[in-house]
């Protein structure tokens, strides 16, 4: 227990509550507040200038989520590590449950109906996968990472939930899980040639599958083509993305003004309160508004990444980095999707899209990032419970 002095810079065994609260990164809280407020205003507009049915419920969720965020921020990293694998297991169980007993909601995402609350396990998984991988890689040295066998476990840890999510079929979440995992693989120092190898194998496999007459039917290929290039099918799936681009473009530099978006208010824009909410915002506030919103997200990601860099433990670094990268994936995929840069995959815009689970998980993720910040000087051994290493 002598090494207990390594807790905190002051060398005290436990940080005091007051100290913890003092270390809360208030700029992050402020940025979150700004983004969420933009979300509330946009939901107000989406309901044609009414708090009902979306804005008031979203505010309630935000309040609950914020409380959880602060609570999570108080938990020290060791405790978080201890909970990592159990959380992962629970998430997997929920995913299996939803695959067999879940209900299909908007788009492909499935949810579990728990009375007043509807849970989307795939959103929860996006946070727990980071927690789990951070936990796992914390136990490996740089040399350990170099051994190919040590990568088998984390690959399995990722592929199992990714596969379950893909089965829903929620391509967006599956992709995000893989991207975030890959990012963590990169920063823990997995050798570059391994990525090159996987990439080459992937491309080769895809090429083979595409050209082999036995694997994909023509109609499946056609569906993939439409998915990749929706504008080739303007009557069907391309219609929505075309309308989204019209809404964005017609917003021009300064936008049409709050509550004045014609594309969204006249129902040309689909899912304006969820996946296409960025379009709605950009139509009403133009390029200037879009850039402000993007800047807020970028600042949040930068903040999270800086916290990761300042953390003294590998777990803290990976957790903060992974969650920040997760946030980046969220807003990049969502905005690129509504701008017609990538296929429509159904990823919500964090803190803004209407939806309870996303709001909760994103705020919990911020809580975790803040926890890393508060406990940045905490040191944890390779193996939990043995700070000696």
């Amino acid at each position, binding site marked *: 227990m002598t090494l207990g002095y390594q807790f905190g810079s002051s060398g005290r065994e436990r940080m005091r509550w007051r100290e913890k609260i003092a270390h809360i990164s208030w700029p992050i809280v402020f940025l979150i507040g700004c983004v969420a407020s933009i979300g509330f205003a946009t939901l107000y507009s989406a309901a044609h200038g009414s708090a009902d049915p979306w804005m008031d419920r979203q505010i309630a969720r935000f309040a609950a989520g914020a409380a959880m965020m602060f609570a999570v921020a108080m938990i020290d990293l060791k405790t978080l590590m201890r909970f990592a694998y159990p959380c992962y297991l629970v998430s997997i169980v929920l995913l299996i449950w939803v695959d067999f007993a879940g209900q299909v909601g908007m788009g492909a995402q499935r949810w579990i109906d728990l009375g007043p609350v509807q849970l989307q396990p795939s959103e929860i998984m996006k946070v727990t996968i980071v927690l789990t991988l951070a936990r796992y890689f914390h136990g490996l040295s740089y040399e350990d990472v170099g051994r190919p066998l040590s990568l088998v476990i984390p690959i399995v840890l990722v592929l199992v939930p990714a596969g379950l999510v893909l089965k829903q079929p929620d391509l967006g979440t599956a992709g995000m899980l893989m991207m975030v995992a890959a990012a963590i693989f990169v*920063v823990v120092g997995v050798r570059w040639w391994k990525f090159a190898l996987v990439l080459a194998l992937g491309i080769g496999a895809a090429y083979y599958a595409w050209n082999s007459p036995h694997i994909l039917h023509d109609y499946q290929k056609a569906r993939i083509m439409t998915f990749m290039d929706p504008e080739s099918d303007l009557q069907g799936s391309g219609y929505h993305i075309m309308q989204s681009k019209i809404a964005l*473009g017609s917003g*021009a*530099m300064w936008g049409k003004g709050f509550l004045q978006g014609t594309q969204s208010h006249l129902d040309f824009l689909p899912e304006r309160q969820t996946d296409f909410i960025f379009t709605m915002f950009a139509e009403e506030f133009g*390029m200037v508004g879009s850039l402000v919103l993007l800047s807020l997200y970028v600042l949040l990601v930068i903040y999270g990444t800086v916290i990761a860099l300042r953390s003294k433990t590998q777990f803290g670094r990976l957790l903060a*980095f992974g969650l920040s990268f997760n946030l*980046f994936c969220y807003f990049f995929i969502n905005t690129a999707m509504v701008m017609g*840069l990538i296929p429509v995959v159904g990823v919500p815009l964090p803190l803004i899209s209407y939806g309870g689970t996303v709001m909760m998980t994103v705020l919990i993720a911020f809580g975790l990032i803040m926890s890393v910040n508060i406990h940045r000087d905490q040191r944890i051994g390779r193996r939990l419970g043995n700070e000696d290493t």
Partner: protein
Amino acid sequence: MALRKLPNRTQARVFSRRTALMGLGQAALTMTLVGRLYYLQVLQADKYRLLADENRINLRLLPPSRGLIYDRFGLALADNYPNYRAMLVAEQTSNLARTLDDFSALVPLSERERAKIMKELSRVRAFTPIPVKEDLDWDQVSAVELNLPDLPGISIEVDQKRVYPFAGIAAHMLGYVGAPNEDDLQQDNDPLLSLPGIRMGKNGLEKQYEHPLRGQAGQSELEVNSVGRVIRELAREEGTPGKDLVTSLDIGLQQFVQQRLSAEFSGAAVVMDIYNGDILAMASTPTFDPAAFYRGLTASEWQALMSDQYRPLTNKAIAGQFAPGSTFKIATAIAAQQVGVTPAFNVFCPGFYQLGNMRFHCWKKEGHGHLDMPGALQNSCDVYFYELSRTIGIDAIAVGARELGLGDVAGIDLPGERPGVIPDRAWKKATMGESWHQGETLINGIGQGFVLATPLQLCTMASRVANGGYAVKPHLFRAADPQKADGPSPYPKMKLEDSWLQTVRDGMDRVCNVVHGTAYQARIPIPGMEMAGKTGSAQVRRITMAERAVGVRKNESLPWKERDHALFVAFAPVHEPRYACCVVIEHGGGGALYAGPIARDIMIETQRRDPARRNPNNEGGRREMP
């Protein structure tokens, strides 16, 4: 401890380096987003703004109200009446069948109408109004309005329908409106014509003045949502209503003429102002009801109209070409004087005229004895005009006839006018490829043979004789300034000397007002209203030598198609002429007997009303008989 920390430090270094790399990657991706935003919202903004407006803005044409047609005193001949329609919006009623049941309790709906409504409903979206019943009368409108709370989805809408208050009285001139057909749409690209329910002029004045009457369509800019529901009206630009048309007609006189004529199977009459060319009345019988064309004719109605031997749809006043018979002698007399024959030119009529081995008969078997030109006109002596025609030749006759307005369209502002025929040598060569025979000169000189003229042309001829040789042209469009009507004729003086015309006017005076004149029976005995005229009976069959031997059959004993055309041209008052008139009764028999009395009645009525000089509506109606 230090050794153990070393790899940990490597780990941190690798983490920092690779995080920086990832940061660069993220920055690059973010810049892609910014670039894309710039492309969409700045570079392509105009294109997408246009597309957004195309999405949400729906242009709807607002039909202008059609110009009205008035008579010279301001009575509406073609009017717009409100057309009340019951409309139904399906989404506003929970029980469609019940709403329709309740509605038909107030306004009966046939099974066919109901089926049509259901069919229409299946085609359109639930918020689109569809017509349930057109042309509701006032009682039905009030019944429906009163019960609107119990008729969810039903509403009353008003637009305009074309109404002709005088029905068949002026149908041939007014024409009618009907839905545009394929040809109309091809020739006229006014988008207004593609509106459902729009009608355009199909005949008569409605067709002639279609463009000014139609007006300019207005436009309503509507904001619609993705399924086409109208959210609000963004802008509204009222169109220009069609211009009203004031005609020269006196509908009172028109009514008289049409009714006076309708006792006959088939015929036409024209009354015109000899100085300014105002058509005061123009009748053609039988007539038709233009309202039938508005609602659309059934196939059998159309068939009946087309196969009628009396051709009710033809305006015979302008499109009926008749052999003018003896009325043409006016033209022959003028033509003769034009080439230097004097009124004193004398011919002895023994009842026939011998040309080589051919014998041409006068209508009076016993002959007229010695006649000069006015005398020949008074008696309508055929032999005199045979001789006159032979003397001057067919080409000279043609020149005179054309000067008086025959042989070409009179140029009235109505569609479908026919030019008639004034033959000469060149004409026969061109149309038949044969050379002219002298015998034909004789026949055509008395208005038989090839000569054809419309009642309007004959009326114009009479006008030009009566007005002292001004090239008056008939028209229906009323000059903007009615005061000018009483001034000197606005038409150019023709190369006709008044003395020549005076000879003819004398002859026409004697036709009516001298005891042995051919139309003495049809004279106007009212002092100051006397008319001058010329009879005509145009043969439509050949009288054989055999028939002549046993006696020419009376018209009354012939089938309708073989009877003579009865013609009469007149002007009045004889010493101070103002009005000219032409009456043609198709296969009516003798001109003096059948057309003359009608012309007399028309001229009396015309002078009583005296529409060219006064407004009977303002001055307490018609002039009393002195």
